[in-house]
């Protein structure tokens, strides 16, 4: 295990792209000496009055998670940005958050680590919200009201201590939704406050919210 107490030298890269392009992301990052990644399916919000009128709110997305040391991560993100053209609307977004420890990847442990650079522009936060299935839209609505530009929803399972665990002969874990929202630093607090209020997060069994600092971000158009 490799651990770094203060300065985190590792990054977890999130790349959110349209369905079907996840494998392309992995291919591009492989050229930047990244050994692998994990793809999740998610749903992104659609902002179009015309489509929303016809009750078309969502688009299938793929979320690619990649772990890398900070130097490699930065290079990979730049290469990705060049290839996938995140600056154009609807081409997806990519960002990285700091993580503490990495296990299980021999390549990462062997790689030479560079010093943390002094001035990184940390302008964004990643807000993660986990709620019961069917409530993700409400989370995104709340966030949008406070100035967020959208979010990505991932289906998940899980159970807190407040939920029943067996129906018939099958053990169950109730369905959940994870909402990922990238927000500007100055808006983060407001967005969280609004989500906590609208979804009564502070009541038992209503879900959890946490934020992480985003180190690099591409494709966020504001």
């Amino acid at each position, binding site marked *: 295990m490799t651990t770094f107490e203060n300065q985190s030298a590792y990054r977890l890269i999130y790349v959110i792209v349209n369905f079907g392009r996840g494998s392309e992301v992995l291919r591009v990052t492989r050229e930047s000496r990244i050994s692998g990644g994990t793809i999740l399916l998610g749903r992104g919000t659609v902002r179009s009055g015309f489509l929303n009128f016809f009750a078309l709110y969502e688009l299938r997305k793929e979320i690619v998670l990649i772990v890398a040391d900070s130097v490699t991560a930065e290079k990979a993100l730049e290469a990705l940005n060049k290839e996938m053209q995140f600056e154009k609307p609807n081409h997806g977004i990519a960002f990285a958050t700091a993580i503490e420890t990495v296990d299980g990847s021999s390549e990462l442990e062997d790689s030479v680590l560079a010093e943390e650079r002094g001035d990184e522009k940390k302008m964004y936060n990643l807000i993660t919200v986990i709620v019961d299935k069917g409530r993700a839209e409400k989370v995104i609505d709340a966030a949008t009201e406070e100035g967020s530009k959208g979010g990505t929803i991932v289906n998940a*399972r899980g159970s807190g201590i407040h939920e029943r665990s067996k129906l*018939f002969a099958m053990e169950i874990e109730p*369905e959940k939704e994870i909402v990922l929202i990238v927000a500007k630093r100055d808006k983060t607090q407001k967005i969280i406050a609004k989500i906590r209020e609208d979804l009564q997060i502070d009541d038992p069994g209503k879900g959890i919210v946490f934020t992480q600092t985003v180190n690099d971000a591409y494709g966020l158009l504001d």
Partner: protein
Amino acid sequence: MRLIVEKLKEVFLAVLPIAAIVLLLNFTFVSLSWFLIVRFVIGALLIVAGLSIFLFGVNIGISPIGNFMGTFIVKTNKIWFLIAAGLVLGFFISIAEPALHILGSQVELVSSARVSSGSIVVAASVGIAAFLALGLLRIVYDVSLPKILTVFYGIVLVFSLFSSNEFLAVSFDASGATTGAMTVPFILALSTGISALKKNGKSSENDSFGLIGVASVGAIIGVLLIGLTSTGSALGAAPDYHTSGATSILGHFLDLVPSTVEEVLVSLLPILLCFLLLQLAPFRLSRRLVKQIVFGLLFTFLGMVILLVGVNAGFMDIGREIGYGIASRDSKALLVIVGFVLGLVTILAEPSVYVLTHQIEDVTSGAVKRRIVLFTLAAGVSLAVAFSMLRIAVAGIQLWHFLLPGYIISIVLSFISPRLFVGIAFDAGGVASGPMTGTFVLAFAQGAAQAVDGANVLLDAFGLIALVAMTPIIALQILGVMYKIKTRKRGV
């Protein structure tokens, strides 16, 4: 906007191959009248539009209803409710299926009314009802799919030993007919709604599929029983085509609209009732979701009507003409090859196939790619159509010559192939036989049978659906075995 353009593009590419092949055939082996060709092209365009709208509708309307229904049924945690829901849903979904009624009336026709259309329809529906309930029980009590399928197909085998050849064909056809374009997405969503709750991730993924496969066995057994009870019913009267009297191109399409609207409405009705029932349930759906589902149902309805009008008015007659033309050329090999190719391209445009392959991607987080499943399925179906042509061209080949070994292989494979693929495969059997195969390929087979001496138009066409429902089961399970071998970690 991009959302719509991409869907249209995807669907257009799915319909393009069949259009290209038909036009190619026109310039090579059979020359068709321009009247038929214009109708065919209009039909193809209608299918592109209809299928796109339908798929949006399924996505935002039918699937959510199925999902909620599944979760709702299980969350009551009452066994009687689960069984009752399975019985009621199964019966009404099946009895509302237009394809089943068409099959029933064809049987009535060829049996000179000794077997009534109603008895076939009711027998198949009761069968589906019973087995849908059993299928639901299987999911919640964690019974393994291969075991339960072995038992069920064992029962089918015993019954079919006592059954006439004709009834064997009819009963396997009935299983394909009951799982139409509307019910497939609903039943799929129902089972994912239940299995998504499961704690064990692997079994949750596995149990998302297989419910359609189990339910279709019910229809086979139901109809076989009818055959056993109505003794001495030799089938075999001359068939009678009803052709539209319209002479204008537009007339052909417009003539079909009223009956299609009625058909689609009836088959949507059970799902609509489920939706209303959910509204009465203790947990309320949000207003946005209700709006979404209402739009979804509207899209499903509209899309299906456009699609069916397109297929029936544009594809039916040309299919029959091509079949007749190819078979008249007196080359058995040619007939088999053309059948193979048509099977390959028709399945690409089949609505339920879309729904199934997308569902597979969702459940496996994209690990099992849509395209691979689609091509495997197409390969299976094309073999089925080729076999059917062989059966028409060569006298003396019986349906069970294919069915018996086919299902034995299917059952054996189900113990070898990964669980996920077993479920997918048996579902795909019901999925492959939708409106496209049921009209275009069937019409092609009937046309071919008409041209071949000693082939009976209706009897030889019976059994086509049965084969189309069988070969994908084998093909997809083989794919599963290949996946198992390929995904073993290398270099560890």
